[in-house]
């Protein structure tokens, strides 16, 4: 009897469970439905608002900007004078001309590609390269003092004239090398001077980094041949030479030798204008201090020995 009672109770509870689960199922369905409707409508409203806002504040961008940007090297070096490749692309499309615009790392090839893509005209520009105008190596301008401060050119320039004593000479702590994004410069450990490699794109970062304006962007020249005065010291000859064996002493011999008026002489210093220079190689031999450098030329017949004697300083 007891067992029967027990069976009935179980049955009852089973029936109860069945009804209970039915109502639960209903509830779940309801919740699903409500959430689908509410989230769906919320999403739709948000989409409508976003669409309207997007329409309202739509920026119409010239598709040509993207085309131009794709053609640029993407180094963002700033060598063109704009904040980066995108900024240059925007400027080109805005101006619709390529006058006065040049991408130094890309060179003429990239400019020509952009010109054809936009149907513009570009003038061929001579390739350029950074040139270090100092030869004050440890041998030519022997160090007189020892510097132990912060090893940057910016600070040591503000502190003193340099270990060699020349107030315009290379300090040799490599701010220019640190500024180069193209791995186109390195410090020569023997001379203590920076060296520009042939892969230089002449972006001008090193020119800005050098506190003494030693580095100049010059024409690359035919077959990479260049002639330049490797000194920017404006001190009087005697003073300059006391600190450095290969300083320009301002004797003016090269100016007399040059038939093309390419050498400008100012403040005891000669400067070769690379637009006028014809690379005739007449001036380097006459320089008494070997301050005029010629690069990548085939060797000339040996120079007479007496030419290396220094000229009388003022």
């Amino acid at each position, binding site marked *: 009897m007891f067992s029967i009672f027990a069976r009935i109770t179980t049955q009852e509870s089973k029936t109860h469970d069945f009804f209970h689960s039915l109502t639960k199922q209903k509830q779940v369905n309801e919740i699903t439905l409500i959430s689908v409707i509410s989230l769906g409508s919320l999403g739709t409203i948000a989409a409508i608002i976003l669409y309207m806002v997007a329409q309202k504040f739509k920026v119409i961008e010239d598709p040509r900007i993207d085309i131009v940007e794709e053609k640029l090297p993407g180094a963002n070096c700033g060598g063109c004078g704009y904040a980066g490749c995108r900024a240059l692309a925007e400027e080109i499309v805005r101006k619709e001309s390529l006058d006065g615009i040049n991408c130094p790392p890309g060179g003429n090839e990239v400019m020509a590609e952009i010109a054809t893509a936009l149907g513009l005209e570009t003038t061929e520009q001579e390739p350029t390269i950074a040139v270090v105008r100092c030869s004050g190596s440890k041998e030519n301008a022997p160090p*007189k*003092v020892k510097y*132990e*401060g*912060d*090893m*940057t050119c*910016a*600070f040591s320039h*503000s*502190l*003193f*004239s*340099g270990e060699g*004593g020349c*107030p315009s000479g290379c300090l040799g702590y490599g701010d220019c090398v640190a500024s180069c994004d193209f791995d186109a410069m390195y410090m020569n450990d023997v001379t203590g001077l920076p060296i520009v490699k042939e892969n230089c794109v002449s972006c001008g970062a090193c020119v800005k980094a050098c506190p003494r304006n030693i580095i100049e962007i010059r024409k690359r020249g035919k077959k990479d041949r260049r002639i330049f005065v490797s000194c920017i010291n404006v*001190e009087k000859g005697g*003073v300059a030479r006391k600190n450095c064996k290969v300083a320009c002493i301002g004797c003016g011999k090269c100016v007399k030798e040059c038939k093309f008026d390419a050498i400008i002489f100012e403040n005891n210093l000669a400067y070769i204008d690379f637009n006028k220079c014809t690379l005739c190689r007449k001036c380097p031999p006459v320089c008494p201090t070997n301050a005029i450098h010629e690069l990548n030329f085939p060797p000339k017949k040996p120079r007479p020995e007496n030419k290396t004697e220094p000229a009388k300083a003022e």
Partner: protein
Amino acid sequence: MKTFKSGGVHPPENKISQSAAIEVLPVPETVTIPISQHLGVPANPVVKKGDSVKAGQLIAKGEAFISANVHASVSGTVQKIDEVADSSGYRKKAIVIKVEGDEWEEGIDLSKDLVKDITLSPKEIVTRINEKGIVGMGGATFPSHVKMMVPEGKKADYLIINGVECEPYLTSDHRLMLEKAEEMLVGIRIQMRALGVEKAIIGIENNKPDAIEHIRSLLSDYPGISVEPLKVKYPQGAEKQLIKALLNREVPSGKLPIEVGCVVHNVGTSVAVYEAAQKNKPLVERVVTVTGKGLKSPSNFLVRIGTPVSALIEAAGGIPEDTGKLVNGGPMMGKALTDINTPVTKGTSGILLFPEQEAHRKPVHNCIRCGRCAGICPMGLEPYLLAVLAGNKKFEDCEDENIMDCMECGSCLYICPSGRPLLDQIRTGKSEVGKIMRARHK
């Protein structure tokens, strides 16, 4: 005993030359007088090559507001006006005079008698200080007459005289306080009159008890002046720290001491003011400490401006063999000399010779984040942060971190266990931030 609260370091004092009385150095054969020995615009030369000049004669006129006159320190002929390398190695304009005899300009009283009565009016005092080319003799060489002119709307109530000499090794101010105390006190009275203040305090660190006692014994004749001994701590000689130590007033960032009613002058400046006002004598000589551990006779010399440093070292016994570094100024803020023939200028307070083993900086290691530099910075800055920001060319951030409040005392460089060039990088940052700020004003 009083001192400033935040930061500061205790470098070894090494006041080797403190018992050496001031000796007059003989006039050299030629002197080289730079036309810019002060802060501000360089003076314009008013003599030509070949002119004969007398000692005390005006040779370059400071025409701008912040500028100072330059006088001949010897009599002779102007040999040339040329660019001459200064202690940094850069060439700056200077007047070179070949010495002939020792003739002084008329009207200059060279006697040693003390003139106590002050006859000049406040305005005349300022004009006289301007005329005689007096600049701050502590080392910053700020033209003194500019400090004497209190801007409108401001009022000074204290004149503070800096006799702290917190730099190790240097003793020139100490000797002046012992040997020319009366002249200094009259000079202080003259400055008080010019400024219209009633009270003056002479702050002296208590490592100079003889100077404190000596000046105290003389004070009865000079009303309004008091002496305050200070606890030894570097950089107590800095204007803002000295005002904080003596009066517990804080000069706001980027402002001058006049903002809190103070004018600070150096001991040496006070003696120079006395000589200009009472004796009509321009600033043509100063006391220079020549010292160093290896030096035969560390001394204090009274030197004519323009004398080459080599002559001073010669008189002190010559350069010892193992000398590694020569410093112009104190060991904390001074600059290493690149040339031994650099002339003594109005701001040369000492010449230091360091032996080779002490001459070099510690090798540079990585920052270990110990925070000592921030703990000892007397201006409450964070040198490690400023150095990193300046090194990474984040100059706007440097400005936000108040880099311009740095007075370049060098405490951070001194304390850094990793030998990092903190001050060097901060200086680079300061010069760049200065450029940015000037560009903004234009």
